[in-house]
C-alpha cells in the first residue's frame, strides 16, 4: 500500500522519483560561504583549440596580431564545435602545442595571448534586448557564435541542444543546480549571486525551445540557494510555470539522465538524448552564459571556478578568465608548492587527476582541487579480491553489475563487457567508493572503454586499407588487360604486312573508311580487318 501511495504521489508530481543507487559522500563544501571574487588578469593566457566535445577549432589569428577581449580567435570546424574567443586584450605571442587538463598530460595546439593590461572589449556583437520577439534560430546562432558549451563539466556545444524539433517537442526545461560532487561550490555561488541572470537565461531558453514549464533542481544541502532562486522568481512576472524543486542530497544526482529520472520519472534510453523524452537540461552556469551572450552580447570568456581541497591554503570561488594558467590561479590562492599535493580538475569523484599544474583553465573547469597526497596514497594499490558483497551493484545509478564488468575488463573480455552494457557506465565512481576491497572499478571501465574504442579504430582503418588495396589490385589488373588488348590489336594490324600489295592497299582503304570520322579506335580497325 505505501508503494502504491508513493507511486500515485510521484505521478501527480507531488513527490520526486529519486533514482536507483547513489551514495552519500561527505560534503566538504568549505567554500560555500565565500562570495566570489574576480581573479586578477594573468600576464599570459593559453587558449587550447578544443575546449568542448566535438571537432577542434582552427586558429584565425597569427603570431603578432593584436586581439580584443571577446574577439573570435579560432573558428569551429564541423557541426559539433564552437569557436574560441580571446579572454582579454593583448598580443598573440605563440601558437603551439600545450598541455590541457587531461589525465594523459598530453597537449593540443593552443594560442598564447600576452595581455596588455587594458582589457579592452570587442563590441562588435550587438546585445539583443528584444529577444522575446527574436527568431529562436537567430538566438541559436548567437549561442554558437559566443562559444557556449555546457559549463557543468561535459562541455557539449549548447546551441545543438537549443533546437526546436517537431518530432521531439521540449515540454520541460530542467535547470541543473544540483552540484552533487563533494568540495565544489561553483553552481552554489552562482545561484546565490546571479539568481536574476540565471532566470533571464532560463527565460531565453524557454523562449527558444517553446517549453511551457521549467524546473530548477537544487539539492537540499543548499537551502540558501533555493531561497535565493525562489526570491528572484517571485520578483519576476510571466514565469509562473517555473518551480524550484529541492531534492534529497545524493550523489550522482547531478548527472543529466539521473536528474531527469529523479524529477520526471522519464528514463533517457541508452544512446538517446534528453530531448528524446521531451526534456532539455542545462547547467545554471550555462543559463547565465546564455543570458550574457544574448542580452549583453558577451562571448564566453570567463567562468566561475571553485578552488578548494584539503591542501588549499585559501579556498575560494573565483571568476576566472578562460585560458588563465592554473599555476597562476593556485598562486593567487596561496598555493605555490606542488610537491606534496595532487591536483584535481573537477570534483574528487569524476574529476581528472592532473600530472602537473601547467595547464590552462578551460570551459569545463568547474573546480580545481588541491588534495594532500596522504589522502590518495595506497588506496588503489591495495586492491583485494572481490567478496561478492554486491554493494557496487546497489550503488550503481545506471543499474549495471560493476563487479562482473570489472572482471571482464581486467581479463580483456571486451565483447562480453559490451554485452553487459559497459558503455552505459557514466563513470560516476560510486562503485569504487563503496567497494570494501578497494577495487578501482571505474579505472577498469575506463581501460575497457579505451581498449574497445582503439580496437574499433584499428578495425575501421584496416577495413579502409583493405578496400584501397583491393581497388589498387583491380586497377592494375584492368591496366594490364587494356595494355594486352592494345598490344594484340597492334599485332593484328601489322600482321598482313607479308600479304600481296593490292590486298594491303584495299585494307588501308577500308581502315580509312572506317576512321573517316577521325574517331576510329584500335578496336574498330581490328574489327574491319577481321571482316576482310
Amino acid at each position, binding site marked *: 500500500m505505501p508503494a502504491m501511495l508513493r507511486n500515485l504521489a510521484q505521478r501527480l508530481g507531488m513527490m520526486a522519483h529519486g533514482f536507483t543507487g547513489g551514495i552519500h559522500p561527505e560534503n566538504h563544501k568549505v567554500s560555500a560561504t565565500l562570495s566570489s571574487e574576480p581573479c586578477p588578469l594573468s600576464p599570459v593566457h593559453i587558449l587550447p583549440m578544443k575546449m568542448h566535445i566535438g571537432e577542434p577549432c582552427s586558429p584565425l589569428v597569427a603570431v603578432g596580431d593584436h586581439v580584443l577581449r571577446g574577439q573570435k580567435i579560432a573558428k569551429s570546424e564541423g557541426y559539433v564545435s564552437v569557436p574560441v574567443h580571446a579572454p582579454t586584450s593583448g598580443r598573440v605571442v605563440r601558437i603551439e602545442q600545450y598541455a590541457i587538463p587531461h589525465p594523459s598530460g598530453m597537449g593540443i595546439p593552443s594560442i598564447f595571448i600576452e595581455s596588455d593590461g587594458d582589457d579592452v572589449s570587442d563590441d562588435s556583437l550587438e546585445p539583443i534586448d528584444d529577444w522575446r520577439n527574436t527568431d529562436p534560430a537567430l538566438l541559436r546562432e548567437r549561442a554558437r557564435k559566443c562559444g557556449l558549451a555546457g559549463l557543468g563539466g561535459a562541455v557539449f556545444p549548447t546551441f545543438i541542444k537549443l533546437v526546436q524539433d517537431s518530432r521531439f517537442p521540449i515540454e520541460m526545461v530542467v535547470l541543473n543546480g544540483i552540484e552533487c560532487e563533494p568540495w565544489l561550490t561553483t553552481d552554489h555561488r552562482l545561484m546565490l549571486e546571479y539568481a536574476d541572470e540565471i532566470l533571464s537565461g532560463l527565460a531565453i531558453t524557454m523562449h527558444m525551445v517553446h517549453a511551457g514549464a521549467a524546473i530548477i533542481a537544487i539539492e537540499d544541502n543548499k537551502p540558501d540557494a533555493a531561497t535565493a532562486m525562489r526570491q528572484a522568481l517571485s520578483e519576476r512576472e510571466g514565469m509562473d510555470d517555473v518551480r524550484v524543486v529541492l531534492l534529497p542530497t545524493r550523489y550522482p544526482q547531478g548527472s543529466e539522465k539521473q536528474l531527469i529520472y529523479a524529477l520526471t520519472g522519464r528514463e533517457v534510453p541508452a544512446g538517446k538524448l534528453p530531448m528524446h523524452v521531451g526534456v532539455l537540461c542545462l547547467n545554471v552556469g550555462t543559463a547565465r552564459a546564455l543570458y550574457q551572450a544574448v542580452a549583453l552580447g558577451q562571448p564566453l570568456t570567463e567562468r566561475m571556478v571553485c578552488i578548494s581541497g584539503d591542501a588549499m591554503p585559501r579556498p575560494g570561488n573565483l571568476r576566472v578568465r578562460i585560458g588563465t594558467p592554473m599555476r597562476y590561479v593556485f598562486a593567487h590562492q596561496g598555493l605555490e608548492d606542488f610537491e606534496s599535493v595532487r591536483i584535481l580538475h573537477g570534483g574528487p569523484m569524476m574529476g581528472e587527476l592532473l600530472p602537473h599544474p601547467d595547464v590552462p583553465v578551460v570551459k569545463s573547469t568547474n573546480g580545481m582541487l588541491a588534495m594532500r597526497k596522504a589522502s590518495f596514497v595506497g588506496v*588503489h594499490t591495495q*586492491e583485494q579480491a572481490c567478496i561478492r558483497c554486491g554493494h557496487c551493484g546497489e550503488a550503481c545509478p545506471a543499474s549495471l553489475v560493476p563487479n562482473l564488468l570489472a572482471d571482464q575488463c581486467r581479463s*580483456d573480455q571486451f565483447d562480453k563487457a559490451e554485452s553487459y552494457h559497459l558503455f552505459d557506465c557514466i563513470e560516476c565512481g560510486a562503485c569504487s567508493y563503496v567497494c570494501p576491497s578497494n577495487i578501482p572499478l571505474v*579505472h577498469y571501465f575506463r*581501460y575497457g572503454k579505451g581498449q574497445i574504442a582503439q580496437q574499433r579504430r584499428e578495425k575501421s582503418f584496416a577495413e*579502409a586499407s583493405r578496400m584501397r588495396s583491393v581497388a589498387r589490385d583491380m586497377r592494375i589488373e584492368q591496366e594490364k588487360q587494356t595494355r594486352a588488348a592494345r598490344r594484340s590489336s597492334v599485332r593484328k594490324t601489322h600482321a598482313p604486312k607479308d600479304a600481296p600489295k593490292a590486298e594491303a592497299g584495299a585494307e588501308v582503304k577500308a581502315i580509312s573508311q572506317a576512321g573517316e570520322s577521325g574517331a576510329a579506335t584500335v578496336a574498330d580497325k581490328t574489327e574491319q580487318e577481321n571482316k576482310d
Partner: protein
Amino acid sequence: MTGLLYALSSLGAFALLAGIVLAIAQKAFHVDGDPMVDKIDALLPQTQCGQCGYPGCKPYATAIAAAEVEVNQCVPGGERTMLVLADLMGVKPKAVEQEATAPMLAFVREDECIGCTLCIKACPVDAIIGAPKQYHTVLADHCTGCELCVEPCPVDCIDMLVKPELIEHWAWPLPMTRRSKLGHARRDHHAGYA
C-alpha cells in the same frame, strides 16, 4: 528372397534420393572461393607490408587457410592477432618472433624528391600521390607504415616517422595493481599461450 529384394531396392532408392538432394544442394548453396580466407583476412591488420613473407594480407590469409604456414607470421598484428587467428584455426598459439614497432608513417622530403613515381607504384594502398617530375607526397590518413616505398626510392628521400600520438586516441592504461596483472596472466593462460 523377396525380403532381400525389398531391402536392396529400398536402400537403393534412398541412396538415389540422397544423391539427388546432395547434387541439388551443391548447386544451390555453392560458395565461390574459400570463406575461411575472407574470415582470416578480416582479422589481419591490412598493412600489406609483406613482413610475413607473402605479398600482402590476402595471400597470407590464403596460406593460413590452406594450413601452409604458422599463424604467428604477422608482425604488425602482434600477439593479439596471433591469438585470434589461433583461436579461429583451432591451432596452438605460438609466440610472434618479431616485436611489432610503434605505428609508423612514411614522409617524403619534398625538396629532394625527383618525381620518379617509383614509390607511387610500390604503395600497396595508393597512399602516395604525385605525377612524373612533380613532388610526391604521402597521404598521412591512409599510410599503413608498411615501408614498401622506402626501398625503391632512388634518392632516399622517404623517412619513416613514428605516427604522432593524438590526445583523442589516448586510452586509459590498465590499473597497475597486483590483481590486475593476475587477471592478465589468467587470460594468457586460458588462451593456452605461455
